[in-house]
């Protein structure tokens, strides 16, 4: 019996309202972990699941609109659910279901704010993200957008006793706020003098190319600040590690995708016909962010910061795909534009599941060992097998290895890049294929990062004696992790269903349709006239059968005897955990090759140092080049302007006297 609610829009609104209600319910008994953990968070997860189901069923449905009673007097809040919103609601619901279940088991007393307050902020965060996806006028969008920023700010600063968490929170909210003002201004331009701020009016308003570009650039600045594109990314590696793991999973998985939704909504839906060179701008920024993000991820020594930088890389790839889509759309190659946009949406969904899985994995590790620094972890696969093997699936997926979902979106994007040389613009068709190489480079580097991440944490010998006491994750946490792993595997093995749905989504919001090829369900062959095809199920069956066959043959033909012995110690006897590669060691080749990107400060011990310690600090050049000068500029202007308030009354009187005289002279 499918419970068919008359309109999926009303269903989504009720679910989002339910989220807000659960949040408020948290305040009833703020201090009791039992009530919040066992009752409210699972309820939240159920809502997430229901939202995902409603979204999936409504993907194909025609868009619905409604007007709420709330909002400004002459601009009540409009809401609209169309295919694009449904897809991102699916993403939000799916990933938040797993994360909420994990969070149910994760939060314990005595950490930062009271659990009830945390529940309120968490569910308000979810509800505001949901509402951003449904908002259909500038005011509703901005209210939901900044409520999302404020609630996530409070989640980031749960342990506000620590200085750097406060600093991270401040930087995060500052950049979010400036970004929001930029989005506000771009809406101001988009309404094209019709004084109507509803999205329908904006769709109708036809802007001159000059105003359209201004609106696009402002929107790109605003949404780029929230998505962590490179020049505006400095808050991301600070804020994500500061937040508790389920929150950073939600921020990385869902919030960054809401920024992607924003860009898609602004360029394709509100601005109508995007210019082709906008795509080029987006492509270059995206690719630069990807390489920059993954290079920094490789040299991090804090596991959550490593994942935060890798989020920057993945968002870079998503924006590169969107950029490529805009380039194709601008020059009229619609089916290829659809392919690139499908690759972007697919990668968003993949990244939501993979990154949430990895963040929750680190959360489980953090909770059982209390350690975040890679230098003090290792060998946890023996103590935490469940978490280790589930996180392994996430790591392989993030590295973009074939049977899993990371590879599918990369494959789609590379297929799209393959046609980039047919773009009828002189230089561009030469440069675009190089973009494909950069995507491949960042994917390969992601593999490098994941080997470092998984190897240093779970494999090898435990670097601290305390790790022996590490316990595996609780039942609820395991359910959360398994849900996300199942998501990754199913997205990897059955891409054709989702791509069918994405075809409709892209067709609806951008008008670019990817023609349907008659390929069977198990074969992914998006382009009819090409023989490029990939089938994950067969691929997996082939791989599994060859592995099993080898095992059987070896066991049958030879034997299966195995003996345990100490590892080979190179003959000098003493082999301890400190001899294996540290996190900085693993990043050393990257520091060497990508030296130009990093501002490295080495702390070399002198020859006579009784306790020699080698320390290396890798910091972000962009912080020195862009943010520090900005800070000093404001500082200096503030200093010069304080001269105005110098305390002497005669000075103040002269100010008013001169103003009077000047104005009078003006009036004559």
């Amino acid at each position: 019996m499918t419970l068919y609610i008359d309109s999926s829009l009303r269903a989504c609104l009720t679910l989002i309202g339910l989220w807000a209600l659960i949040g408020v319910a948290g305040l009833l008994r703020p201090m009791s972990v039992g009530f919040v953990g066992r009752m409210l968070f699972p309820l939240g997860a159920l809502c997430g699941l229901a939202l995902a189901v409603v979204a999936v069923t409504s993907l194909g449905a025609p868009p619905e609109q409604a007007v709420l009673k709330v909002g400004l007097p002459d601009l009540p809040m409009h809401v609209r659910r169309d295919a694009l919103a449904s897809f991102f609601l699916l993403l939000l619901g799916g990933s938040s279901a797993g994360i909420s279940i994990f969070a149910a088991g994760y939060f314990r007393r005595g950490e930062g704010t009271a659990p009830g307050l945390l529940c309120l902020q968490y569910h308000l965060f979810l509800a505001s993200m949901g509402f951003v996806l449904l908002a259909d006028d500038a005011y509703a969008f901005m209210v939901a957008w900044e409520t999302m920023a404020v609630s996530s700010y409070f989640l980031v600063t749960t342990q506000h006793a620590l200085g750097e968490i406060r600093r991270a929170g401040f930087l995060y909210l500052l950049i979010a706020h400036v970004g929001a003002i930029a989005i506000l201004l771009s809406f101001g331009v988009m309404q094209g003098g019709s004084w109507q701020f509803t999205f329908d009016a904006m769709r109708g308003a036809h802007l001159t190319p000059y105003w359209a570009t201004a609106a696009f650039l402002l929107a790109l600045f605003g949404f780029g600040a929230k998505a962590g594109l490179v020049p505006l990314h400095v808050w991301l590696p600070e804020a994500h590690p500061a937040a508790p793991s389920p929150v950073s999973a939600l921020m990385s998985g869902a919030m960054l995708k809401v920024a992607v939704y924003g860009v898609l909504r602004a360029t394709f839906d509100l601005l109508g016909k995007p210019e082709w060179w906008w795509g080029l701008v987006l492509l270059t920024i995206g690719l630069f962010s990807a390489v920059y993000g993954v290079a920094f991820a490789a040299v991090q020594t804090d596991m959550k910061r490593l994942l935060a930088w890798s989020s920057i890389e993945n968002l870079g790839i998503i924006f590169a795909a969107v950029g490529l889509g805009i380039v194709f759309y601008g020059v009229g190659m619609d089916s290829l534009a659809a392919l690139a946009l499908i690759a972007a949406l697919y990668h968003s969904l993949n990244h939501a599941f993979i990154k949430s899985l990895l963040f929750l994995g680190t959360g489980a590790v953090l909770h059982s060992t209390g350690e975040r620094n890679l230098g003090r972890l290792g060998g946890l696969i023996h103590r935490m097998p469940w978490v280790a093997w589930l996180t392994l699936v996430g790591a392989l997926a993030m590295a973009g290895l074939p049977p899993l979902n990371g590879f599918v979106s990369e494959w789609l994007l590379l297929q799209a890049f393959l046609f980039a040389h047919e773009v009828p613009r002189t230089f561009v068709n030469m440069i675009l294929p190089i973009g494909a190489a950069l995507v491949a480079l960042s994917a390969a580097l992601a593999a490098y990062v994941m080997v470092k991440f998984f190897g240093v944490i779970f494999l090898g010998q435990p670097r601290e004696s305390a790790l022996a006491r590490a316990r595996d994750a609780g039942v609820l946490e395991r359910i959360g992790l398994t849900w996300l792993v199942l998501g990754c595997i199913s997205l990897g093995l059955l891409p054709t269903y989702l791509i069918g749905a994405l075809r409709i989504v892209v067709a609806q919001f951008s008008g670019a349709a990817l023609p349907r090829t008659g390929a069977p369900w198990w074969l992914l062959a998006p382009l009819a006239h090409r023989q490029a095809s990939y089938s994950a199920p067969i691929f997996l069956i082939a791989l599994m059968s060859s592995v099993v066959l080898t095992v059987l043959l070896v066991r049958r033909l030879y034997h299966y005897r195995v003996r345990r012995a100490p590892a080979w110690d190179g003959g000098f006897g003493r082999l301890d955990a400190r001899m294996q590669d540290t996190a900085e060691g693993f990043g050393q080749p990257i520091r060497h090759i990508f030296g130009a990107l990093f501002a490295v400060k080495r702390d070399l011990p002198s020859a006579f140092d009784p306790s020699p310690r080698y320390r290396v600090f890798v910091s972000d050049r962009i912080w020195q080049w862009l943010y520090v000068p900005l800070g000093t500029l404001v500082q200096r202007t503030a200093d010069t302007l304080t001269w105005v308030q110098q305390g002497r009354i005669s000075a103040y009187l002269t100010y008013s006297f001169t103003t009077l005289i000047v104005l009078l002279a003006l009036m004559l």
Partner: protein
Amino acid sequence: MTGTPLDLQLLNLCAALLLLLSFAMLAQRRVVTLVSLLAIQGVLLFVATLLLAWRTGERHLYLSAALTLALKVLLLPWLLHRLIRRLQVYWDTEPLLNISGTMLVGLLVVIFAFGLAQPIAALASTATRSAIGIAVAVILLSFVTMITRRKAMSQVVGFLSMENGLFFGAMSATYGMPMIVEFGVALDVLVAVLVLGVFFFQIREQFDSLDLHHLESLKESSTSSKTTPPVSAQSGQEH
């Protein structure tokens, strides 16, 4: 000036004397003479209002003349003299700008005021329309006096001479304001002086001098205070 009736000539004389007086106040350094100059200004204002009342037969002008006499000629100067004796503040220190400098500024201000008042005077129907320029000049001159003075008392005198200028402006432009406003303004000026008197005692008690350079502590220290907002340090990690 010949041919215009006698009272108009007297009115213009009063206006000219008023202008001269505000110039004198600009250059005066002794506080006591400053107050007496204020008193003379009050007298001139009283005479001018009386003349105007007599000329136009407006009854409420007699009332406002009486008010000016009571307030600006008798009560306020007496009050100020008593305060000067109680607080022994007789001398004003060297003003910011030397005397010749202030005079030059005063001259420029007067020229500007006359240029400003030209269009208004052309429209005025009242007989004393030319006096509006002088009223504006008196206001701006007293403004300059307040700026250049370093003693609290002389600043108050500057403030009161500005009030006189305003009254003279109202009187010459529109034969005075409606009664209800006149009373309100007079009441405000009286209360202002009472409040200032209270101020003098407190400033004297706190700083044991009425010099204004004590009152300069509240300002933005441009020295870099340590509590700049925490947009700082870099995200390097220490291993």
